[in-house]
């Protein structure tokens, strides 16, 4: 080691080039470790857990109808793929439909509230009642009053998903910079200009935060809706497949459908996170990666 001088050391000794002291070197090492750990840890843990699960099921000879091993679940997933993908499409349609409706309803209501304090005062109590009522408890009523299966399911999923969008958007619309607000007044901005050029852009980050929460909730809503309303005789969704499999004690089938539900949830989250990044990364602090 005595004869081995690194390039940096030589440069430092000669008084030129970047001087890398031990603290800086340690910091750079820590940064590298941090970066690798960011994806290596979750993936490593995932592989370890799956491996342990597989090993444990085989070693303890746990029967498939209690707990299937990952390999059996994957095999089942591919075996059932044709019918599962139809079910997935149904669930996906409901989820995305509910999310879009929640976006329009929640965002629209939030805009309405900022335009008229009176409307907000009048409607807010009902919004809160809708939010705090357990959806399961009113499911039978919805079943009774709404004829179309699709409308029922969408309605349930919408109720579950829309509140975070409404409350986040309303908060965002209200928290515009008050000096900018004054500036718009001084420059004689119309109500529409203030909304379009000040309030909506200010609210975008919190609106998108609401969307990310609502994305997960819409999926939950779609699953809950099908649990409570049944499949409606048409193409059954993933939730119905889980229920059906459980009645028949086909546990691997249950897990296969469950895996698809989880993957869908993760995919929705990732897409919304990507959209958020796309829209905000140029200007918003939350979307900026600092050194």
């Amino acid at each position: 080691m005595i004869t081995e001088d690194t390039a940096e050391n030589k440069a430092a000794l000669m008084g030129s080039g970047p001087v890398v002291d031990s603290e800086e070197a340690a910091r750079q090492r820590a940064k590298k470790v941090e970066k690798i750990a960011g994806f290596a840890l979750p993936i490593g843990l995932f592989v370890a857990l799956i491996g342990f699960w597989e090993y444990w099921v085989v070693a303890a000879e746990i029967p498939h109808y209690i707990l299937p091993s990952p390999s059996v679940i994957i095999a089942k997933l591919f075996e059932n793929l044709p019918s599962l993908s139809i079910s997935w499409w149904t669930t996906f349609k409901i989820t995305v439909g509910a999310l879009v409706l929640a976006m329009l309803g929640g965002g629209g209501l939030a805009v309405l509230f900022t335009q008229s304090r009176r409307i907000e005062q009048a409607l807010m109590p009902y919004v809160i009642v809708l939010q705090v009522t357990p959806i399961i408890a009113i499911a039978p009523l919805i079943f009774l009053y709404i004829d179309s299966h699709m409308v029922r399911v969408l309605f349930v999923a919408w109720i579950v998903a829309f509140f975070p969008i409404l409350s986040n958007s309303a908060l965002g619309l209200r928290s515009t910079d008050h000096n900018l607000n004054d500036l718009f007044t001084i420059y004689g901005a119309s109500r529409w200009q203030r909304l379009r050029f000040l309030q909506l852009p200010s609210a975008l980050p919190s609106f998108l935060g609401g969307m990310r929460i609502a994305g997960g909730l819409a999926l939950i809503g779609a699953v809950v809706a099908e649990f409570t309303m049944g499949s409606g005789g048409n193409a059954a969704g993933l939730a119905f497949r889980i229920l059906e499999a459980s009645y028949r004690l086909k546990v691997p089938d249950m897990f296969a459908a469950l895996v698809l539900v989880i993957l869908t949830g993760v995919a929705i989250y990732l897409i919304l996170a990507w959209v958020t990044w796309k829209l905000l990364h140029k200007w918003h602090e939350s979307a900026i990666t600092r050194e």
Partner: protein
Amino acid sequence: MASEIMTSPASAGGDTPNKRPLLASLRHVDKVFGTDVVALKDMSLDIHQGDFISLLGPSGCGKSTALRIITGLMQPSRGKMHWEDPEAANNLGVVFQEPTLMPWATVEKNVYLPHKLKGTPKSRVQNDIDEVLELVGLDKFAGAYPRELSGGMKMRVSIARALATRPRLILMDEPFAALDEITRQKLNDDLLHLKSKINCTVIFVTHSVFESVFLSDRIVVMARRPGRVIEEIRVDAPYPRDLEFRTSAEYGEIARRTSDALLSAIGDGDDH
């Protein structure tokens, strides 16, 4: 009250504040918040074209309130905000203590805002925008977002935006208070340079004696509880002012007098 003190014989050859045409004036303005907070008491102020007026006083003496009344964001409780030419009231430039930029818009779009809200297409004012950006030395940053800029640069954008519509009157509420001393002095120099170029009227709120003496030709000293004008000090040193003025005996003398006025303003209040 409101005693006028002439610092030195008019040195700027004819163009002294009281010979310039009147632009606007506050006339015996009171502003009361709630029932007992008297933010302004009988404030009168004549604003002449080309004036650089500093409002100097401890915090809470109604400086911002006076600006808000001039901009029309607030109505006086009593008295009147008078405009010689009502057109000038509809074309104001405003700079706040914070840069107050839209973070989602580029520098150029931020500067375009006043025109945009007046419905002028961007292509029609592109030259003006380029010009003000060049004036504040940010022409290379037209496409940058505010978060990419330093505090001083953001303030320059804010000033460029205020200048964009070539307003007759520019109101600045402690614009450099949050900046470090070096940036602040640089911006003071640049502000004077800008003013000489575009020939506008400035009302500048500050609580820095030195800033007010360096920048203005009239220093209006205010006291609080109730907020009121206690003294007006005239600075007749000619523009352009530079480092030489900052170190001159005249500057020191006016600064001392202004400090005294400010001290008595603080002493006048019933608490601090």
